[in-house]
């Protein structure tokens, strides 16, 4: 059984579990239907035009990408049986397997090129970051795709999965507007599952694709069940109306109860690192003073935030890039040693900076319960050092406008790394033009740090990257334009007899490996 020991205060070991079940004597049994919980109805089912979580959940099992990421993060072939990289690290040549779309049409390199150039490059935020560095995507023949970069880019392969570069059927999309194409609601992909039905607001059914180019799925069907109320999701699991609940949708407080349930199994660990942090608006008067920002770091007990706002599912901030990537972490800049919880020190720093009666507006997404809870803790703790905080929850759309328009003092956010700090974390610190959403909103701009991050992003060798990250860490840990709160800990709860979860890096991926053990 995948028993779980919940580590609350000790540093969490990065658990990169492999797919091999711990009890090798069980052989996978085909058949059955698994019910997976979704917290909201996806807008549509095309992962090529959206980075939203539920869209990816369904989309990645219906569509294929060139590669997929194994449990340890390494890319392995999906639609591509293999690839070669030129010596200068600029040219990647992919060989495609023989595969068909669910309507029988063969998948060719033309589909790959079309999807990337016409659909994903203009519409997909994450793929675009890769595309900006791509010089060309060509299809010399029906079974080969060649991607040529402008300069070396280590994370390229991570951005070629079905999450970011799904292979869409050109014959259904060509000539139409991908945003309104009806195939978005009834997808025809080449993945291990075929689209079945979609009852809006209720559930999405997918059926096994018996012509899958790799091993067909073990299950007959997967039903994605929509449960918007977070309370109801764990309940569904407990009463047997669902089989799998990802941490993304699980209220952290339910985890201990689910873990104690003898009919269920739970798991925690890090899959794709994500960081919870606070932008500090350096354009606000007094917040431009580094001593004030450092005072904020001392004044806030990040352990309490992890324990109460995140239900223990986090590792309190270990540095400017967290602890998710060993090469981006530096022991010298570990926030736990550099900025321990010390309200007196905070008060001293504030006095030194001559700050009294500071009032800060805390803007956050009103739909995120963890942010609201953290906000209450932060407000209480800052009050003890003489800073008054006003909580200003706002709907996502308003929050985005305000934060990225500079109309805030402190704000809480969470960014996923996307599999590589260069994909998801650099944007936190890199100089950014005001008004761009989901990048640096603190107004902090350090050309030297920008340069170091740029260098680190291009290298493939982790030691070489670490050298740059160490330098950046030092400066960022001193300047703290951003208060890193914690690394998110992924979690999962499942029916006791479900097997085969987390065979691939992303929890949503690899549902074809799920099966039910007989009781």
């Amino acid at each position, binding site marked *: 059984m995948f028993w779980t020991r919940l580590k609350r205060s000790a540093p969490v070991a990065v658990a990169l579990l492999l797919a091999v079940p711990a009890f090798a004597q069980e052989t996978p049994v085909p058949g059955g*239907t698994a*019910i997976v919980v979704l917290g*909201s*109805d996806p*807008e*549509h089912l095309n992962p090529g035009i*959206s*980075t*939203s979580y539920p*869209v990816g959940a369904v989309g990645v099992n219906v569509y294929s990408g060139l590669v997929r990421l194994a449990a340890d993060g390494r890319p392995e072939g999906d639609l591509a049986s293999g690839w070669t990289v030129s010596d200068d690290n600029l040219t990647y040549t992919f060989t495609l397997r023989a595969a068909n779309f669910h309507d029988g049409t063969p998948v060719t390199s033309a589909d790959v090129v079309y999807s990337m150039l016409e659909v994903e490059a*203009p*519409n997909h*935020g*994450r793929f*675009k970051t890769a595309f900006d560095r791509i010089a060309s995507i060509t299809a010399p023949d029906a079974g080969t795709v060649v991607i040529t970069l402008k300069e070396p880019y280590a994370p390229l392969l991570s951005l070629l999965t079905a999450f970011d570069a799904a292979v869409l059927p050109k014959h259904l999309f060509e000539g139409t*507007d991908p*945003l*309104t194409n009806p195939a*978005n*609601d009834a997808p025809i992909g080449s993945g291990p599952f075929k689209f079945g039905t979609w009852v*809006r*607001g*209720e*559930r999405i059914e997918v059926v096994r694709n018996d012509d899958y180019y790799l091993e067909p799925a073990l299950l007959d069907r997967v*039903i994605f*069940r*929509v*449960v*918007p*109320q977070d309370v*109801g999701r764990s*309940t*569904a699991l407990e*009463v*047997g*109306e*669902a089989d799998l609940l990802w941490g993304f949708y699980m209220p952290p407080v339910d985890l201990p109860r689910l873990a104690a349930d003898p009919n269920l199994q739970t798991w925690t660990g890090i899959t794709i690192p994500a960081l919870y942090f606070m932008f500090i608006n350096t354009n606000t008067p007094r917040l431009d003073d580094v001593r004030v920002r450092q005072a904020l770091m001392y004044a806030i007990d990040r352990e309490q935030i992890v324990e109460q706002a995140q239900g223990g599912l986090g590792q309190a901030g270990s540095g400017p890039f967290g602890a998710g990537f060993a090469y981006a972490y530096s022991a010298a800049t570990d926030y736990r040693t550099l900025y321990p919880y010390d309200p007196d020190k905070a008060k001293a720093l504030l006095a030194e900076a001559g700050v009294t009666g500071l009032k800060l507006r805390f803007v956050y997404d*009103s*739909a995120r319960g963890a942010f609201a809870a953290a906000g209450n803790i932060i407000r209480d703790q800052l009050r003890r050092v003489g800073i008054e905080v006003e909580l200003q929850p*706002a*709907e*996502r*759309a*308003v929050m*985005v*406008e305000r934060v990225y328009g500079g109309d805030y003092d402190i704000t809480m956010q969470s*960014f*996923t790394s*996307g599999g590589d700090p260069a994909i998801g974390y650099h*944007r936190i610190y890199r100089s950014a033009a005001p008004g*761009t*959403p*989901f*990048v640096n909103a603190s107004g902090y701009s350090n050309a030297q740090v920008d340069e170091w991050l740029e260098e680190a992003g291009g290298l493939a060798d982790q030691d070489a990257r670490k050298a740059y990250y160490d330098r950046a860490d030092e400066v960022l840990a001193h300047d703290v334009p951003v208060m890193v709160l914690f690394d998110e800990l992924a979690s999962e709860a499942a029916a006791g007899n479900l097997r085969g979860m987390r065979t691939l890096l992303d929890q949503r991926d690899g549902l074809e490996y799920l099966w039910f053990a007989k009781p």
Partner: protein
Amino acid sequence: MASEGNGGGLAIYALRRVINAVPLVLGVVVVNFVLIALAPGDPVTSLIGEYPAPPEYVERVRHDFGLDRSIPERLILYVANVARGDLGFSFANRQSVTTLLLQRLGRTLVLMLSTVVVATAVGLLLGVLSARRPGSLTDRGATGFALVGYAVPEFWLGQLLILVFAVWLGWLPAGGFRSVRVEYVGFAAALDSFRHMLLPMAALSFRYMAITTRLTRASLLEVMSAQYITAARGRGLSENAVLWRHALRAAALPVVTVIGYNFAFIVAGSALVETVFGWPGIGRLMYDSIYTRDYPVLLGILLFVSVTVILVNLITDALYAVLDPRVRY
């Protein structure tokens, strides 16, 4: 009891009321639209996921949904569309709003109608029981129940019901519309739906049970002392006959009107209860749409509910006019 020979009068009354309703509906549409068009926030942001989207993509989405036109333009377009029955296109759900509403409508109606039926039946019964013997234990109990039932917030009640019946006792499902795992058919399906509906219906109906009980009791007591009742008793009719045949008919009138005029509150209550129980109806659609800034859906729901309220008011007015001989039209 109904006025005879006034059929023509009733028709004219009804027509007058309907004509009155038209500017009301228009007013609702315009006000809704203005309100929401002026609200801060950009609905496009909710469509593009969590990662910086290319600006051309953002502009395309904006254009596709007509968000780049001026407000007066959009209003005129909207009014014209509504007249045709087209309530717009939902951003987040990628469906026409009308289709979306109609899909969810059935589930909300099932919940609301069964609530009204059960609440009315139980309320009438309790009201009668307490009016029969004013001051008795039954009376006091029913009145107390009515008082508390009217004060309890239905969403809190919903939570408590889940706690008691779904979690601690495990008798009923904690939410949802039907079992997902097993596809029931026929009678089993109906039973399954019924099981899922019990708790939300209970939570929703308490308030109306309470109102109905109180009102029935009050009306009955008032009527019971009226002249023609005394006369009926004098003619030797049994107490029960007096009660059921004469008094109840007179008392039914205020009850009907209360249910009719409180319809809007049933809608509100259902929004709260649907959210607590994850019941996929219009109430929950509303809740979800607020967070995704789905303007057309919100407008659609507001309009739909307002028109429904107007309709129900009309029907109640008509019923009232037919049933109450004192109303002159």
